[in-house]
């Protein structure tokens, strides 16, 4: 492995770790900044509340509290959730897998639809390509918030798919999980497939105008080979670069879909934690979310570096 690549990978990994630290710290600071705390919703006397705050360490100055939390977090102890009275890492462990499952399947589905569609619209004219282009343009305007409602309506009207939730048993058969996964996954994947299609289409069109492709054509390459081999390779780079951005889009979309469709994931948990001012749970969720995000971006960066070694050179 070339040294430039290793240095690039190390730098990016450190950056990802820094992001996780910063995001969870910022989330914690924001919750502390907010008026009220986890106890303000409970009916209790001022003395009892003060005693409880002292017991939970909520009355300590922020920096003391933060230092204590950081010290424990490094040892992977993220504290107790004030709302659920359970360790934060247990709560997150139950949820993060669901979000990763939803996000990864949505990303995969969007790729499976978007990439071929983009190659089609980028390389051809005709009714089929026009149709794909039109559908894609319309889907670009329909965010997950809207798609999830429309899909729910479809589920309620036809009864083909369950309306929300994740089934009785999370560990139930994979067919059962897939049935529940279908709609939330589609709700995120459809708008994203449109984004991928638009970019892939433009990249293929540019690639087909590239001198190397024209040279291949002059050598007598077949049209299919030109598009699916030469142009596809050239168009790989901008599309891989897009995935670094899409990971964030997936997480945003997943938040909305988890709440509309009652998918028990990290987004819904983060929301609950924020509203309950559950300090440690917020910080834990932020750390887990940032970890998902950074891992996705890192994977995309490394894939890009493999596809185009030039990106490992410092700009």
């Amino acid at each position: 492995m070339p040294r430039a690549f290793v240095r690039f990978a190390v730098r990016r990994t450190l950056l990802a770790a820094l992001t996780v630290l910063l995001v969870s710290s910022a989330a914690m600071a924001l919750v502390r900044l907010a008026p009220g705390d986890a106890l303000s919703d409970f009916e209790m006397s001022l003395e009892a509340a003060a005693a409880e705050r002292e017991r939970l360490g909520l009355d300590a100055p922020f920096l003391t509290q933060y230092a204590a939390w950081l010290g424990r977090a490094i040892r992977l102890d993220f504290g107790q959730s004030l709302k659920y009275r359970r360790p934060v890492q247990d709560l997150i462990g139950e949820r993060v897998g669901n979000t990763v499952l939803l996000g990864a399947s949505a990303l995969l589905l969007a790729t499976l639809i978007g990439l071929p569609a983009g190659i089609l619209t980028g390389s051809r004219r005709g009714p089929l390509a026009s149709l794909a282009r039109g559908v894609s343009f319309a889907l670009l305007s329909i965010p997950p918030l809207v798609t999830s409602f429309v899909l729910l309506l479809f589920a309620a009207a036809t009864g083909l798919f369950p309306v929300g939730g994740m089934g009785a048993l999370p560990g139930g058969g994979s067919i059962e999980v897939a049935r529940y996964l279908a709609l939330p996954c589609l709700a995120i994947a459809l708008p994203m497939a449109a984004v991928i299609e638009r970019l892939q289409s433009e990249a293929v069109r540019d690639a087909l105008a590239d001198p190397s492709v024209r040279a291949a054509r002059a050598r007598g390459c077949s049209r299919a080979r030109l598009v699916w081999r030469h142009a596809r390779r050239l168009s790989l780079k901008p599309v891989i670069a897009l995935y670094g951005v899409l990971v964030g889009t997936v997480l945003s979309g997943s938040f909305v879909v988890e709440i509309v469709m009652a998918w028990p994931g990290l987004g819904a948990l983060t929301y609950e934690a924020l509203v309950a001012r559950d300090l440690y749970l917020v910080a834990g969720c932020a750390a887990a979310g940032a970890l998902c995000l950074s891992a996705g971006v890192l994977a995309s960066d490394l894939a890009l570096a493999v596809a185009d070694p030039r990106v490992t050179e410092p700009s």
Partner: protein
Amino acid sequence: MTLPPRRAAGAALLGIVAAAAAGADLLQVHPSARQFRDFVYAPPMPPRIVDAGGRLRPPFVYPLRLEDRLERRFVEDRAQPMPLRLFSGGALLAADGPSPWFPLGTDGLGRDVLSRLVRGARTSLGVAFLASAGALLLGAVAGALAGYAGGRLDDGLMWAADFVMALPAIYVVLALRAAAPLVLGAAEVFWTMAAVFILAGWPLAARTVRAVVAAERTREYAEAARSIGAGTVRLLLRHLLPAAHGILAAQAALLLPGFILAEATLSFVGLGFGEPIPSWGLMLQDAGRGRALAEAPWLLAPAGAIALVVFAVNLVASERASGASPRYSRDKSLW
């Protein structure tokens, strides 16, 4: 200057929506908060021009009669068509008859969906427009400062911008919103939301403006302006920032739909506007409740409105000048 047809269509659509929001008082058939106890989940009553006997007549609607209160079953009363009249009872178009007219049906409290939709357009689009303008302004200032000054300030500002942009936007908005008191009055919600959106949205504009200003400031015309004594502020405002205006317009087309969605999401989860101020997100909250969707699919009207506005903005932004095209850049939308 003539617009390409797609952009013209988008601009026309946006104009219609803006006019509907501005003229909400005229368009709403009933006060948006009025509850019709006998018309809970009443279906839409489309205007007709052909009556039950197949005869053509001036536009009219059939009144609804509640047949079964428990099952919420309504029947059209074919015997008494109500003619539609222009400018009657303070509304642009109203039905003339004993029974109320609900063009888009009613919600679970018996409120007219159309009235709430046009009222909600004011709140939802108002916040989004204000926040877009604010984010562009803040982004332009930060970007101009960073691009012009360079050095540490540049590094610091752009690092902050990159950090915010790398995070999923909805979480940034959510976390910032949660730092404000959870329960707020209507006006406070409006300003809090706008402020939160501006804080989440400025980096997008700042990044691009910085790139333009940093590139343009070494050009001959900037040099010339400086040499005849133009000060920093004048140079930025009169010479450098105008070079970024096309790019700023492109950013607006990304920010506005994102903010409309952010409002809808926040109000949907209960951190945005609350009753009785209608907003599109709040209306969607009603639609998401229990079996409302199966019983009253017309409650999805605000989802349609959101898609329509985003579609219109996308139309306007399509085929933009190739120089301002953000392709391949790490631009992201806010959802």
